[in-house]
């Protein structure tokens, strides 16, 4: 099996789609010669040329809005918003336009748009360059939201996003770009709306996204040594959520921890906790724990940033709280 980094996996999905299909093209800031601020689109300008690998001005509304317009005409554009913090600039177009055209027209239109973006703390980027805003977009009817955490997943899901006829917000995580793994020889599309169980366990279910999937896997190893068996599940698709897999897992273990890098309060994890509480009420042996960032903007100084953002330790502690072994 070939080994690909997460970054290469994104590039591979984009390139394969563009080779197969003239209607697929990419646009974004600095994606052409520079190959993107995260190096994702390196080499693609040479292969596909400037018509299909388009640099845009710093103009997020027009960037995303133009992609919306092209999608409405049947193309499959993939717009890159350099940092998910800048999604805020394009939010009017995403929320008021892309998410609603199909509905407001009574089904006359499709918007097969993909907006790729990334975020992630841990390198002192400061408060405006590392937010995790998936909670904003899962809240909007009409959008699909994906957040893969491995190279295999990002490749298979990006393909599915491109070929889904609905607007998809596709979150990548900065700290995962270099993460390598063996991937299938052939690109295998992964269905949207299907969670993935990374690790099976009996005592606690940890539902995690993005970087926290890996932190949770490490925490699970740690908990194992303390005699606690942890199941780790990555929803991968945040909207529509694979409630069945998550609920089945919690019904098996009777305890749940929801972990994400985004701020805990009012986050995506709150919705998951509510769903679990409602559907697995009689299976819960402990309150559902949530792990996330503290409720402050991201500070610059490394010592403060590490305090705010969640890591393996927080997930481990949450796991132990659910089994009634806090302070052990």
């Amino acid at each position, binding site marked *: 099996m070939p080994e690909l980094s997460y970054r290469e996996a994104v590039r591979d999905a984009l390139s394969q789609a563009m080779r197969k299909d003239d209607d697929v*093209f990419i646009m974004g800031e600095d994606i052409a010669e520079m190959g993107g601020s995260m190096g994702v689109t390196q080499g693609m300008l040479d292969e596909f040329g400037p*018509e*299909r690998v*388009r640099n*845009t*001005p710093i*103009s997020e*509304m*027009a*960037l*995303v*809005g*133009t*992609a*919306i*317009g*092209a*999608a*409405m*005409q*049947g*193309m499959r*554009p993939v717009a890159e918003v350099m940092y998910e913090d800048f999604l805020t600039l394009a939010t*009017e*177009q995403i929320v*008021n*336009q892309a998410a609603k*055209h*199909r*509905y*407001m*027209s*009574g*089904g*006359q*239109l*499709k918007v*097969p748009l993909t907006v790729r973006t990334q975020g992630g703390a841990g390198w002192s980027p400061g408060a405006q360059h590392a937010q995790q805003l998936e909670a904003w977009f899962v809240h909007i*009817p*009409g959008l*699909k939201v994906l957040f893969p955490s491995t190279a295999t997943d990002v490749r298979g899901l990006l393909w599915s996003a491109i070929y889904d*006829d*609905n607007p998809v917000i596709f979150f990548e995580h900065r700290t995962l770009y270099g993460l390598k793994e063996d991937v299938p020889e052939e690109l295998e599309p992964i269905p949207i709306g299907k969670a993935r169980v990374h690790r099976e366990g009996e005592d606690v279910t940890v539902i995690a996204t993005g970087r926290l999937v890996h932190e949770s896997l490490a925490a699970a190893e740690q908990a194992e040594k303390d005699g606690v068996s942890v199941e780790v599940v990555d929803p991968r698709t945040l909207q529509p959520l694979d409630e069945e897999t998550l609920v089945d897992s919690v019904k098996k273990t009777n305890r749940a921890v929801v972990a994400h890098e985004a701020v805990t309060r009012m986050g995506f994890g709150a919705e998951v906790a509510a769903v679990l509480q409602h559907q697995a009420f009689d299976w819960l042996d402990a309150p559902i724990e949530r792990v996330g960032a503290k409720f402050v903007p991201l500070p610059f100084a490394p010592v403060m940033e590490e305090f705010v953002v969640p890591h393996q330790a927080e997930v481990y502690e949450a796991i132990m709280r659910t089994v009634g072994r806090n302070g052990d």
Partner: protein
Amino acid sequence: MAKVEKKGAVSEELLREFFREMLLIRRFEEKVEERFRAGELPGFLHVAIGQEACAVGVCRALEERDIIASTHRAHGHTLAKGTHPNEVMAELYGKLEGTSHGYGGSMHLYDVERGNVGANAVVGGGLPATVGAALAFKMRDEPRVAVAFFGDGATNIGTFHESLNLAQLWQVPAVFVCEDNHWAESTPAKQHLPIEDLTDRAAAYGMAAMRADGQDVEDVYQSAHSALDHAREGRGPVFLLLETYRLTGHYIGDPQVYRPKGEVEELRETQDPITKLREKLGLSDEEFEEADREAHELVEASVEFAKAGTDPKPEDALKNLYA
């Protein structure tokens, strides 16, 4: 700034067609006002009384596969682009037979088959998509043009600037039609525009611009034709400024307390595009009344059609979320 030359004169036959269409829009809008006051039309409605020549002049210059995107004041554009008054009225009544099947209402009229990709309730919201549609036409080598309607108020918003910038940068086949009626809801031009000549806004982006008398349908038609040719032939997007007047309030029921006394009455006397065309064509009273009767009949029929239409089922609200 590149100048675009206007086309030659328009035949009388065509002008008569324009007259009938404008009159239809006028009677439609008046009927909408009446039905709104009778409490039959929910939501809010913005009628285009006074701006009929802009809608007809531009839409009649389009070719079959060109597309338009409209604003909150969309009835005129939608009718002029070819949607039957029955379907527009049914949409205002929220019926399944409406052009957006009851999902959109007055500010979200879509008729994709006829090239209307939607009215937009967010000022300037539809402009970027117009750039995108034009980009798609260019990338696929299709001789089609994407046209966006908007008002003078919209020339202040970010999407306007970003869209014109990108459209000109990428030389896409788009025409940006600005219906300058000198009011942004209740705010007069001098309170929201720091400049006098809106074509300067196009100049800022190096874009070709044209100007026409929005109350003269012939002038609008000729200018639109030229602008469309310019874009279609790959010479780049065009900003088309139409000087027009809003002969009613911003929304139905707007008491227009903000408008100088007598302004509306005076404009109705001197700037009504239908009156002007009637005079230009030298229509007799009989000819006018016959045309008016036809317009009234069509409009009355559309109300009957709408009222007899099918209400969506409550659960229909859950459909059409995803493709």
